[in-house]
């Protein structure tokens, strides 16, 4: 075995072991920590594939930022220690992951899928004299050629493709908008409102309701008692 194969096996075992720990442990905090080991293993695989940029991106974004977000999410949750979180959808999750893995393996793995519906046994009755043995299937072809090497200038190529209108410019700009939307949503949900702001908001709501009632009364079709939101100031609503 070459040193690359040894390293690959070590990393693959680390990824598999930590990933299985992540989905089987009942302690969410330990799961988050073990997920960091999984991310490290994936970064190591990127190094073995000779794409150091993605390894750096993996360490910077997934280990440096996403893991921190996950750990914060665990720490933010009240009463996490006594609770034993249980995943009640383990079977559904396992089936979904299995299907996705199989599809990815068939798409990118060393397999060749041949489906010839016209030659399936039942359909062949209507399809003439095709022999029932040629029904298509999955062929496994072991990769015998070495993995193509990454060109020296791949970082610059990647950078150029990001801002190329014919390549990835649109996804590149969409990432910025996506991050904008996510940040705005998180701020909207998580922001702690100051007490002064809450009072100001209530006052504004009451004023708007009063103005609306006034306008409707002048139009001559208003109900005598305008519905007021909760917390409306009585003096504002008097006239």
């Amino acid at each position: 075995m070459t040193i690359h194969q040894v390293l690959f096996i070590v990393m693959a075992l680390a990824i598999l072991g930590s990933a299985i720990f992540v989905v089987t442990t009942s302690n969410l905090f330990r799961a988050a920590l073990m997920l960091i080991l999984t991310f490290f293993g994936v970064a190591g695989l990127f190094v073995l594939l000779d794409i150091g940029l993605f390894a750096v991106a993996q360490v910077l974004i997934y280990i440096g930022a996403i893991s921190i977000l996950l750990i914060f999410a665990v720490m933010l949750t009240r009463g996490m220690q006594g609770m034993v979180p249980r995943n009640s959808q383990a079977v559904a999750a396992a089936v979904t992951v299995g299907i996705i893995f199989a599809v990815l393996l068939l798409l990118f793995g060393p397999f060749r899928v041949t489906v010839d519906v016209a030659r399936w046994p039942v359909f062949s009755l209507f399809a003439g004299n095709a022999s029932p043995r040629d029904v298509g299937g999955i062929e496994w072809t072991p990769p015998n050629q070495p993995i193509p090497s990454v060109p020296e200038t791949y970082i610059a190529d990647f950078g150029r493709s990001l801002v190329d209108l014919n390549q990835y410019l649109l996804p590149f700009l969409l990432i910025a908008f996506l991050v904008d939307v996510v940040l705005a949503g998180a701020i909207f949900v998580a922001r702690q409102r100051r007490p002064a702001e809450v009072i100001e908001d209530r006052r504004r709501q009451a004023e708007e309701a009063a103005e609306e009632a006034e306008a409707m009364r002048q139009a001559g079709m208003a109900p005598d008692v305008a519905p007021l939101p909760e917390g409306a100031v009585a003096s504002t609503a008097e006239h």
Partner: protein
Amino acid sequence: MRTDFAFVGVMLVTAALLMGVALIAASLLRPKKPSKAKLETYECGMETVGDTWVQFRVQYYVIALVFVLFDIEAILLFPIAVAFNSLTFFAVANVALFVIVLLIALLYAWRKGALDWE
């Protein structure tokens, strides 16, 4: 390229060895006489107060999210910076647009007071 990362591997192994050898040697050499005081959580010599598991403030999450924003920005700008000499004006303008759109997110967070720490 791969050999450049061999140094990272050497450093990882060295760090693991340093820590591992020190901890394992200590556990082999030290006498084991646990007592109640010795098994308490060590916190700078003070007696610990309250629960170890406290709920964090939600503002940490927003700050971490702003950090993700600039992490993504940085990692996408590095390869473009490498290719900078061969970029067209159109490409540079789009990079500027990318940065401006992300700056809008920062300004929004700033304006909404998500960056204030009370």
